[in-house]
C-alpha cells in the first residue's frame, strides 16, 4: 500500500460546531438575489401587459369613435377624419398568403433536400446560407427589393399582363411595386424559418418509418412523399403558421415595395397597404389626436392578429412535442 504522504498538521478541532445560529445574513442575500431576478422576470410580464394595455388605451378613442366600422370601413381619410383599416387588413393577409404560397414549395423542398438528400458536407453550408438570410436587416432587403426585384417584377407583370389581363389577378398597369412584389419579398424573408423548422421536423422522423417504406420497394422520393412528410405534417403546419406570423408583422421591406395605396383590389399587380406599412408611413403625419389614435388602434389590431397566430403556432408545436415526440 502506498503511503498517504508525510504526517500533516491539521489544526486542532474544537468540540463545538461552528454553525451560526439565527445568523440570517446569508439568507438575506439569498432572498435579495431571488427577488432581484424575479423582478427582471416581472419586467417581461409588465412589458407585455403594458404594451397591450397602452395600445388599447391610446387606440380607444378611435375604437369608440368608429366602433366596429373601424375594422370594416375602407376609407382612410386624414382630412375628413374617417378611418377604417379594412384595406390594410386585406393587404396584410394578401401579401402574407402570397408569400406563403411562394415560399412553401421552396421551403419544404429545400428542407427535404437538407434533411433527406444532401450529404452532411453540402447540407450544413447550404443550411447556413439560408439561415443567414434571416439575419439580413429588413430595410436592406427592402432596398434590394426596391432596386433589383421590383424592376424584374415589373417586366414580369408587363409580360403576363399582355396576355392574361382578363384574369382579375393579373389586371392593371405594371407598376412593379404592389402586392406581388411585397409577396415575393416576404416569401424570401420567411423562407429561412420555414426551411429551418421543417428541416428539424423531418430530421426527427424516426428512421424506421423510412425503412419500412423502402422495404416495400418505394423510391427515395416516394418514401419522402408518402412516409416522412405525412409523419411530420403537424410540425410542418406549425412551421407554416410560424412563417405566417413573421410575415404578418414584417414592416420595412414591405413598406418599400408595396406602393402604399389604400385600396382593395383582387389584382396582384396593384399597389396596396398593410397594417404595418400604414403605421410606418403615416405615423409622422399624424397631427391630430384622432389620427394618432387611429394609427395606434391599427397597431393594436396588428398586435392581436400576430399574437393569435403566434400562440396558435406554439400550441401546435407544443402539442407536437408532448404527443408524438416529434420535436
Amino acid at each position, binding site marked *: 500500500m502506498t503511503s498517504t504522504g508525510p504526517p500533516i498538521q491539521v489544526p486542532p478541532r474544537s468540540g463545538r460546531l461552528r454553525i451560526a445560529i439565527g445568523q440570517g445574513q446569508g439568507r438575506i442575500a439569498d432572498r435579495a438575489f431571488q427577488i432581484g431576478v424575479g423582478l427582471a422576470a416581472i419586467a417581461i410580464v409588465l412589458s407585455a401587459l*403594458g404594451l397591450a394595455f397602452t395600445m388599447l388605451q391610446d387606440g380607444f378613442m378611435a375604437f369608440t369613435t368608429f366602433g366596429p366600422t373601424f375594422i370594416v370601413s375602407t376609407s382612410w381619410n386624414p382630412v375628413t377624419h374617417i378611418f377604417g383599416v379594412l384595406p390594410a387588413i386585406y393587404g396584410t393577409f394578401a401579401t402574407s398568403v402570397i408569400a406563403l404560397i411562394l415560399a412553401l414549395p421552396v421551403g419544404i423542398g429545400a428542407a427535404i433536400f437538407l434533411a433527406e438528400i444532401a450529404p452532411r458536407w453540402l447540407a450544413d453550408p447550404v443550411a447556413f446560407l439560408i439561415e443567414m438570410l434571416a439575419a439580413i436587416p429588413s430595410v436592406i432587403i427592402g432596398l434590394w427589393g426596391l432596386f433589383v426585384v421590383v424592376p424584374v417584377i415589373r417586366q414580369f407583370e408587363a409580360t403576363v399582363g399582355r396576355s392574361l389581363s382578363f384574369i382579375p389577378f393579373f389586371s392593371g398597369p405594371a407598376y412593379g411595386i404592389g402586392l406581388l412584389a411585397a409577396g415575393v419579398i416576404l416569401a424570401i424573408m420567411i423562407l429561412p424559418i420555414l426551411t429551418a423548422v421543417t428541416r428539424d421536423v423531418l430530421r426527427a422522423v424516426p428512421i424506421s418509418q423510412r425503412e419500412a417504406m423502402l422495404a416495400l420497394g418505394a423510391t427515395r422520393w416516394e418514401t419522402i412523399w408518402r412516409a416522412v412528410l405525412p409523419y411530420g405534417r403537424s410540425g410542418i403546419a406549425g412551421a407554416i403558421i410560424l412563417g405566417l406570423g413573421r410575415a404578418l408583422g414584417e414592416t420595412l421591406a414591405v413598406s418599400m415595395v408595396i406602393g402604399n395605396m389604400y385600396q382593395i383590389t383582387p389584382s396582384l399587380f396593384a399597389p396596396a397597404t398593410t397594417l*404595418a406599412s400604414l403605421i410606418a408611413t403615416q405615423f409622422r403625419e399624424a397631427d391630430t389626436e384622432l389620427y394618432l389614435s387611429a394609427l395606434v388602434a391599427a397597431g393594436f389590431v396588428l398586435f392581436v392578429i400576430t399574437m393569435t397566430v403566434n400562440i396558435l403556432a406554439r400550441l401546435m408545436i407544443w402539442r407536437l412535442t408532448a404527443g408524438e415526440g416529434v420535436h
Partner: protein
Amino acid sequence: MSAPTVTGSMSSLTLGRRRHLTDLVMRGLCGVAALGAAAVLLLLLGHVVIQGAPALSLQLLTSLPTPLGVEGGGIAHAVVGSAIMVGLGCLWGIPLGIAAGMFLSEYAGARTGSFVRFTADVLSGVPSIVIGIFAYTIVVAPLSGFSGLAGAFALGLITLPIVARTTEEVMRLVPPELREASLALGVPRWRTILAVVLPTASTGVLTGAILALARVAGETAPLIFTALGNNFFSLDPNRPMASITLTIFQYAIWPYEYLHRQAWAASFLLVLFILIVNVSVRLAARNSGVR
C-alpha cells in the same frame, strides 16, 4: 418439373420508368429549391457588395449630410447614432434579460415558469413596429419629444425576451451536480448561481447577448417614431437621433442618385457588421465544443 415462370407481380422488380423518373425529378427539384434559396442570399449580398463597397469611403463615414440635392456628404451622424442607441438599448435590455433567464432557470416553479416563458415568447413575437408604438406612448408622448432614449428603450425591449430565453436554455444545460457540489460546500444559492452556474454557461449566454445586439442593430421600424432620425450630428440622447437603418430607409425613398449610393454603402457596412458577428459567434461556439 419446369422452373416457375416469372409472374406478373414479380415483374415489379424492375422499377417502372415513370416512378424512377419522378424520383429523380422531384429530388432534383428539391435540390434546386435549396440551392436557389441559398443563391438568393448570395445574389442579395453580391448586389450589396457591388453597389456598396465602391461607395464606402472614409469620407462617407466621417462627414455629415449635405443639404438636400447637393452631392457628397456622409453618414457619420447615423453611425454614431446607431452606436449610441444600440449601446444604450443593450445596456438595459441584455442584463435584465440575463437576470430573467436566471430566474427562469434557477428559481421558477413549473407554473410561474410556464407563464413567464409564454409571456416572453409573446413579447418576442410582437412586430417591431408595435414595439415602436409602445415606446412612443411610454417615452415620447409623456416627454413630448422624440429622442434617442426612446429609441434605445424600444431596442432594449426587443432584446429583453430574446436574451431571457437563450440565457435560460443555456443555464438549464449546466448539470445539477455542479450546483449540488457548490451547495454542499456551504456556498449560498445566489453565489452558486453567479460563481458556478453562470460561468459554466458563459459562452452560451454571451452568444445570446451578442446575437441579440446584432439583431437590434438592424432594426428600423421601432426607431421611426421614437428616435425619428436626425440630419444633424447629435450625441444628445434626449433629442432625435439618426441611425444607419433609418438613413437607409430615408435615402432609398428620395429620388436622388447620390443618396441611393450612400444607402448602398450604409447597407454594405451594416451587413458586414452583422455577418461578421453572426459568423464569428457560430465559429466560437463550435470551437469551444459542445460541452
